[in-house]
């Protein structure tokens, strides 16, 4: 989005929030069912700045929970990125690897990652590693698939050009395939990152303690819709920010590609 377009982009959300507040104030919603934006902000303030007390988990714990979720996403996504890119390159470049793993990968890919939750908890217990495993496992597939598709599409003239210039065949993967695959790698990483946030919430609701997903579920159990909305918006903001960071990183890495589109 261009800087000049921001105000217009914020208009619709602002109007929605305004409508939401008015609807609550005018009593269009059953009392005690849906909190107004003001109530949401008030409880959010307590969640962030309130005193930490053993009596209420939702007081003063926001920063800690955010850091917990962030750490899980960072760890899981990092593992998925490294393994996904490596495996994707091998899968896309070496026909033998593709023949060996294609069937297995398609089978595993067909299983929603959430179906692995009970197995994961059984195997890892209520432990950080359960969440990290789930995120890494889930984000691995879109990353690996996207990288493999990109590697398969490496222009033949580029690999031929490299061979003709003296690159030994075994070095083609690093010299040509890897850089040629970078655009689709970043596309895969973006999908993987989005999925990481889905899976951190799922695993925190079901498998591990602390974090925004844990807060979400705890709020549900005590009927605190205001806190639920706080947690939802928090996840949204974090997801948006992490995606923005990734896009900036891809812009720097792919600056050689700028202007290619539409040429």
């Amino acid at each position: 989005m261009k800087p000049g377009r921001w105000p217009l982009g914020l208009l619709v959300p602002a109007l929605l929030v305004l409508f939401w507040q008015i609807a609550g104030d005018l009593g269009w919603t059953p009392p005690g069912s849906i909190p107004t934006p003001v109530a949401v902000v008030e409880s959010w303030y307590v969640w962030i700045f309130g005193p930490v007390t053993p009596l209420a988990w939702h007081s003063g714990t926001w920063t800690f929970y955010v850091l917990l979720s962030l750490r899980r996403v960072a760890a899981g996504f990092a593992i998925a990125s490294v393994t996904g890119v490596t495996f994707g390159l091998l899968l896309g470049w070496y026909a033998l690897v593709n023949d060996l793993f294609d069937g297995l990968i398609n089978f595993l890919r067909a299983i929603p990652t959430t179906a692995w939750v009970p197995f994961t908890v059984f195997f890892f217990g209520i432990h950080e590693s359960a969440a990290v495993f789930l995120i890494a496992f889930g984000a691995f597939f879109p990353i690996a698939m996207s990288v493999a598709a990109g590697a398969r599409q490496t222009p033949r003239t580029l690999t031929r050009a490299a061979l003709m210039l003296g690159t030994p065949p075994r070095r083609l993967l690093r010299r040509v395939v890897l850089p040629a695959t970078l655009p689709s790698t970043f596309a895969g990483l973006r999908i993987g990152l989005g999925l990481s946030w889905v899976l951190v919430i799922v695993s925190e609701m079901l498998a591990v303690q602390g974090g925004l997903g844990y807060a979400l579920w705890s709020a549900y159990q005590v009927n605190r819709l205001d806190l639920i909305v706080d947690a939802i918006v928090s996840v949204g903001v974090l997801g948006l920010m992490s995606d923005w960071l990734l896009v900036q990183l891809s812009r720097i890495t792919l600056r050689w590609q700028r202007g290619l589109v539409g040429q």
Partner: protein
Amino acid sequence: MSSAPVIACHQLTKAYHDISRGETVVACKDITLRIDRGEFITVVGPSGCGKTSLLYILAGFETKTSGSIMIDGRPIQGPGPDRAVVFQEFALFPWLDLRRNVEFGPRERGVSRSDIDASVNQILRTVGLETAANRYPHELSAGMRQRAALARVLINDPKILLMDEPFAALDAQTRLALQRELSKLSAEMSLTVMFITHSVEEAVLLGDRVLVMSARPGQIMADISIPLPRPRDPTSLEFNEHRREIARLLEQASLSPVTAS
């Protein structure tokens, strides 16, 4: 000029299986050819006459089906920096800037840093791109990209230069300039060149010899020497006599039956 040919083909045939059509296609057939050191050979022929196949076999990208092909008396074993290839679509690495594209070959061959810097600067000056060294390929015009592609292979000090319609994507002005420079460079560096083109004028302008190939299966229909002095004047009478002759042969080549495949 030494008597031993740089390139010697004997009854070279290339056939491949076209999976989508489920039939065997003979790209070129019984090509017998000698190219001497320092000769500039241009190749014309109808589309699909196997001229690119011949070039790619020389480059080592493809293998022959039968017959023999020798370079300096040795069979071809894969691509290598002694046989430079310039592609129609430039094939520069889009993720590397111009300097790094040109450096690519020497780096891969393990040339020392200081030697690379000196030769890169020199070759960029030769092709007139010294001010564009830090630009990425997409920031260069088509003419500049083809100059860059030329610089990238010339830095490897090749013996043979293989060019597959390198100037087809350029505007007339740029093409003319590059044709002149190539003619000069290849003579200076005593390169043996095989240059594929669709343009009869270009073939006569650049070639010591023009090979006319027939429609698939591609065979050499005519091998015509162009004994005109360089630089050649495309408006001269002699030039146009050659041009007419080759155009006439090419027309015959296109008409010749394609049924035998």
